[in-house]
């Protein structure tokens, strides 16, 4: 029902009526993604919910999704969070694609036990939760939800104290006693919380974040020792191993392309000498056969705009300390099937005839400037 192509609605949505983008009642079951309500005995919902929200995103940032978890901490009613979830992300019947409401008794119990707690801090029970709108249990031709006696009263965003009370998971191990029995400050290591501890800053991260190519620990320990590559291989950012000779050849060999990252750079010296990292070594580029088109390409590849000037400078003298090797422009560079500079350069047996290496001055593209306000003579 999301396009204008007049596709028929699903059977639960008014038979074969044409979809009208304005028809907000045309709802479908969708998986629950609201973090607060991920441990319900059902896993699909439909919108709008009983609070008038039109999506889970709207629910997640609503007043009620802050209110109920805060109220749960007061221990006012064991099944308050279950009730809250039945109105925030109502159960969707997979057959009829219709919402299943909470039973009136569940609504009333929640309101009776918790409304007064809200009153103490000057807040009101959500206006849209009139219990009369929900059916009585056992009422003919209707179904409604009641909590299972062993329903988990704390949402995944909460920690359950030994006393049974729910406190925010973020308050677990925060150095303050938040449970009435102080159980939130017991066993506070990452391991006890099912997480992995970064050796450096002792931060806890999920196990799924280890060796996933994204550093999460401050000293990157979660991305170390993730693979064992041979001597003739280098490690990709995602920890695959790729042969050194394939590194920076202008073609992707790591599945995340990291073998082709940072292949071209400029030295910090003046003038800025072009440096190319290829086959796991750093090279200068011989100025023989170099041209302005290649200068533009090099600057663009480094994200330094398209306008460039080439400066040629004398190669390091043989025998000098720190002498570097060089690359040559491939004779068929313009026909090569690579558009990245490193794929257009090659190692060659002969020397650099001009004895000059390439240095560049790149001019970054203009950005962040607003046109001046126009002046008008008055």
């Amino acid at each position, binding site marked *: 029902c*999301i396009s*204008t192509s007049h596709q028929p609605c699903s059977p639960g949505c008014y038979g074969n009526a044409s979809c009208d*983008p304005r028809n907000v009642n045309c709802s479908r079951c969708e998986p629950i*993604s*609201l*973090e*607060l309500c991920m441990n319900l005995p059902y896993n699909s919902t439909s919108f709008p919910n009983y609070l008038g929200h039109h999506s889970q*995103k*709207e629910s*997640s*940032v*609503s*007043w009620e*999704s*802050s209110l109920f*978890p*805060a109220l749960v901490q007061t221990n006012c009613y064991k099944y308050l969070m279950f009730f809250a979830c039945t109105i925030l992300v109502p159960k969707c019947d997979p057959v009829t694609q219709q919402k299943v409401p909470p039973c009136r008794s569940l609504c009333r119990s929640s309101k009776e036990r918790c409304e007064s707690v809200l009153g103490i801090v000057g807040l009101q029970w959500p206006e849209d939760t009139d219990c009369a709108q929900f059916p009585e249990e056992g009422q003919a031709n209707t179904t409604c939800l009641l909590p299972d006696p062993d329903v988990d009263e704390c949402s995944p*965003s909460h920690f359950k104290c030994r006393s049974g009370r729910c406190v*925010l998971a*973020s308050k677990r191990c925060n150095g303050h006693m938040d449970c009435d029995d102080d159980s939130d400050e017991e066993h506070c290591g990452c391991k006890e919380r099912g997480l992995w501890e970064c050796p450096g800053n002792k931060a806890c991260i999920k196990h799924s974040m280890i060796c996933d190519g*994204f550093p999460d620990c401050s000293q990157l320990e979660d991305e170390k020792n993730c693979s064992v590559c041979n001597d003739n291989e280098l490690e990709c950012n995602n920890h695959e191993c790729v042969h050194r000779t394939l590194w920076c050849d202008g*073609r*992707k060999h790591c599945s995340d*392309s990291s073998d*082709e*990252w940072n292949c071209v750079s400029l030295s910090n010296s003046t003038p800025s000498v072009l440096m190319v990292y290829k086959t796991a070594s750093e090279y200068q580029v011989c100025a023989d056969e170099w041209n302005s088109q290649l200068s533009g390409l090099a600057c*663009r*590849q480094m*994200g330094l705009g398209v306008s460039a000037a080439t400066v040629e400078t004398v190669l390091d003298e043989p025998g000098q300390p720190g002498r570097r090797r060089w690359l040559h422009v491939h004779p068929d560079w313009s026909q090569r099937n*690579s*558009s*990245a500079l490193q794929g257009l350069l090659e190692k060659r047996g002969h020397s650099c005839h001009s004895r000059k290496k390439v240095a560049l001055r790149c001019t970054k*593209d*203009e*950005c*962040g*400037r*607003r*046109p001046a*306000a126009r002046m008008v003579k008055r």
Partner: protein
Amino acid sequence: ILGGRTSRPGRWPWQCSLQSDPSGHICGCVLIGRKWALTVAHCFEGRESADVWKVVMGINNLDHPSPFMQTRYVKSIIVHSRYNRAVVDYDISVIELDSEIEVTSYVRPVCLPDRGQVPKPDTYCYITGWGHMGNRMPFKLQEGEVRIISLSQCQSYFDMKTITSRMLCAGYEAGTIDSCMGDSGGPLVCREGDGRWSLYGLTSWGSVCFSKVLGPGVYANVTHFTEWIERQIYLRTFNL
């Protein structure tokens, strides 16, 4: 934008509108190069295909096409692979336009911050967009000045959500000036000492902005993603 004001045409030449038929404007976006724009990942939920989108630049009034308007179709969308819709983390995506824009006074890119360059708390920056104003949706682009808020202070406003290092908070406790529905993907820009404007945030999420629960807005922290953005552009440009 709540509590903002109508902006002068051309004042924010990097602001663009991400549109899809038949709804028109869905999200904001920000031009960062001749062929590249940024927006947030959540704008593409359920609409991941590039074919259904177009990017409109150089306009102030959504209802009145301007002679300075440029429209480009979307060639590709790169959503961050770590985007998590449940907690709205890594909420960023790169848009590749089908052809380069013509840089004019009304259409020009903003700068990306250098790696590690973040605005200090209490710095004043600007947000812009065609999102909800609290009582109506505007036709004309709105702008608002917001204050950068530290992550720890921001976390105190959002007890139920984790504010991660991929997020940046800006606004006011009372929510007097804030971004709102429809501003998503639009820019939070700060003026640098040399007069240039840099993009530090992309409008991402916050409280229901016209409800009684207020607080600052939460933006995708562009500085965190600078390297990722540069790599995506590089890999696409050179077909790697």
